[in-house]
């Protein structure tokens, strides 16, 4: 898997590093133009747009309190009695007599939050590690190079461990909670971002404008902060979109393994899905609603991310 990951990341870096050399217009404008005609990008964008909309307005439009066991005495989970869809509860009741529809809508926000925070954690820590490695390698002399080599080997080792296992280890350490899920999934993304950032920054470092900046004596720290870093962000945005999808799915997997969010009050799709697995034969709807939510959302982010990646990739571009 590592080589595949690395190859993909390297491609992405290469794609954006050539940004400055592009002759016609900015790379981004080109990409967006290309993406407008891609069914993948369109579908992805629509799904993501809808999801974000629901996540933002959800809590205000939900008909009921998603945590109140209003109809608690109508549900008998030991006898498979789950009052189904009916006028006052469009999606029926969950196993504690809470309104499923409200839980789904409110859950969208929690789900998005998990994805975004996890990705952000991965990005920040990854950027730090990748940035340190790249800076050390470029400006740190002989020792710097060694530091860089060791850091990057460690990143490679971490990349080699399946993401779920990394997340699992972290979740085991922190005990189950929503915060844990975010951190665990985020930590699992660190090596990806680290590798991406470092590669991207190195590519920038060897570009003409940085060489020029060095030549005219701009301090090294400033070059890193104000030139290299901002210009390395392109591939990161693409990667972040893809990571968001993974984060949502991994969060569900962690919940399934019992390491997820144990707070039964809060509504979050991954927790809801894992929790409903046990009613799969008696009340499959309890699992299917959140499952469909997760699948569609993850697909939306993946389609969008893949389309972005493709439109940025010069090797695929040139055949058009």
């Amino acid at each position: 898997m590592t080589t595949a990951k690395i190859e993909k990341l390297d491609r992405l870096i290469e794609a954006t590093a050539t940004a400055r050399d592009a002759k016609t217009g900015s790379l981004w404008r080109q990409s967006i133009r290309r993406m407008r005609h891609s069914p993948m990008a369109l579908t992805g964008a629509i799904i993501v747009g809808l999801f974000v909309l629901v996540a933002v307005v959800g809590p205000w439009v939900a008909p009921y309190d998603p945590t109140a066991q209003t109809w608690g005495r109508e549900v008998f989970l030991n006898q498979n009695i789950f009052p189904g869809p009916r006028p006052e509860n469009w999606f029926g009741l969950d196993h504690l007599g809470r309104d499923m529809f409200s839980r789904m809508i409110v859950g969208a926000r929690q789900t998005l939050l998990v994805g975004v925070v996890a990705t952000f954690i991965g990005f920040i820590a990854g950027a730090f590690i990748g940035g340190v490695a790249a800076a050390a390698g470029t400006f740190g002399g002989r020792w710097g190079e060694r530091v860089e080599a060791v850091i990057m080997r460690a990143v490679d080792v971490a990349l080699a461990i399946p993401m779920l296992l990394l997340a699992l280890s972290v979740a085991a350490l922190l005990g189950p909670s929503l915060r844990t899920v975010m951190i665990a999934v985020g930590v699992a993304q660190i090596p990806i971002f680290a590798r991406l950032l470092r590669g991207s920054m190195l590519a920038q470092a060897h570009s003409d404008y940085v060489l020029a900046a060095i030549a005219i004596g701009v301090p090294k720290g400033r070059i890193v902060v104000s030139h290299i870093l901002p210009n390395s962000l392109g591939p990161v945005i693409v990667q972040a979109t893809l990571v968001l999808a993974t984060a949502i799915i991994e969060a569900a997997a962690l919940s399934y393994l019992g390491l997820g969010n144990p707070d039964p009050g809060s509504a979050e799709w991954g927790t809801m899905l894992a929790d409903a697995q046990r009613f799969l034969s008696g009340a499959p709807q309890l699992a299917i609603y959140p499952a469909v939510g997760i699948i569609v959302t993850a697909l939306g982010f993946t389609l969008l991310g893949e389309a972005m990646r493709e439109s940025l990739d010069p090797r695929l571009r040139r055949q058009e």
Partner: protein
Amino acid sequence: MLRYTVKRLLQLSVALLGLSLLLFAWFKALPGGPENRLLPENATDRQREALRAALGLDEPVWTQYGEFLGRIVRLDFGSSLSSGRPIATELAERLPATVELSLAAMLIAVGLGIPLGYLAAKRRGTWIDFGTVSGSLLGTCIPIFFLAAMLKVVFAQELGWLPTTFRLTAGADFTEVTGLRVFDGIITGEFDIAWDAVKHLILPAIALSSIPLAVIVRITRASVLDVVGEDYVRTADAKGLKPSTVRGRHVMRNAMLPIATIIGLLLGSLFAGAVLTESVFAFGGIGSFVYQATTERDYPALMGFILVIAVFYVVINLLVDLSYGLLDPRVRVRK
């Protein structure tokens, strides 16, 4: 070349040592002691303390780390908290099941993925391309434990076409050779056993293949697109070679290189996926073991597993890197 190899090995050992430190720190920082897992809930505090002391949890940290490293080198990961057996034995015993399942999943992924990826590349930009790529992406977006459970509910529980659990019908009388039941059934001539094993493999293998399938579709597509754009393919086309010849000799042969690399390395995601599929089918491989270890907080078992996987990968990666170095002189020059 030798210098490159030595350098990589050195960096690797530093990284591995770092990994072991991290793992140890992780293990030390885990909440709750093993004593709570080992004793019934009405054990007295005195009994708990006694066990803690007896387990050496009161020794200085560095002694414990030394002990830890020594054990890893001897492949002794301690005993599982839930079964009381050596973790190395548990993992070794369950390996064949997971290997068989992974191979079956990989077979499905390759058998479907390469033709689909080729098709998508050939029809790039059409709805066929979009359908294939997003279809394969959909596979990665379904939480694998849910996919497994749904497959089982539909094809085993409701339709009754396939068995719901295990690797063989319970109590089946078979000869064990390699531990790969299908293979064993064929070489010993117990074809009914082999067929039984195949039936038990189908559903979990399909569930497990969803992610590698998507990866293979996309890699095939990308590398076919890459190769199609190369001068030698255009030349071949221009020469007027038969399309099938171009496809077989020029396109696929060159596109296969990255695909083949990927297949070897996808095993990682398969092992992680096995954790989420095997338990659904009570398949009894490493995945089931790790699932149980996770839900029961059997941390030594979990750590043993992570360690084995990590070392496994690091070694495979090193081999791949080195072979690249051998095959592609540019790699050596670059660093």
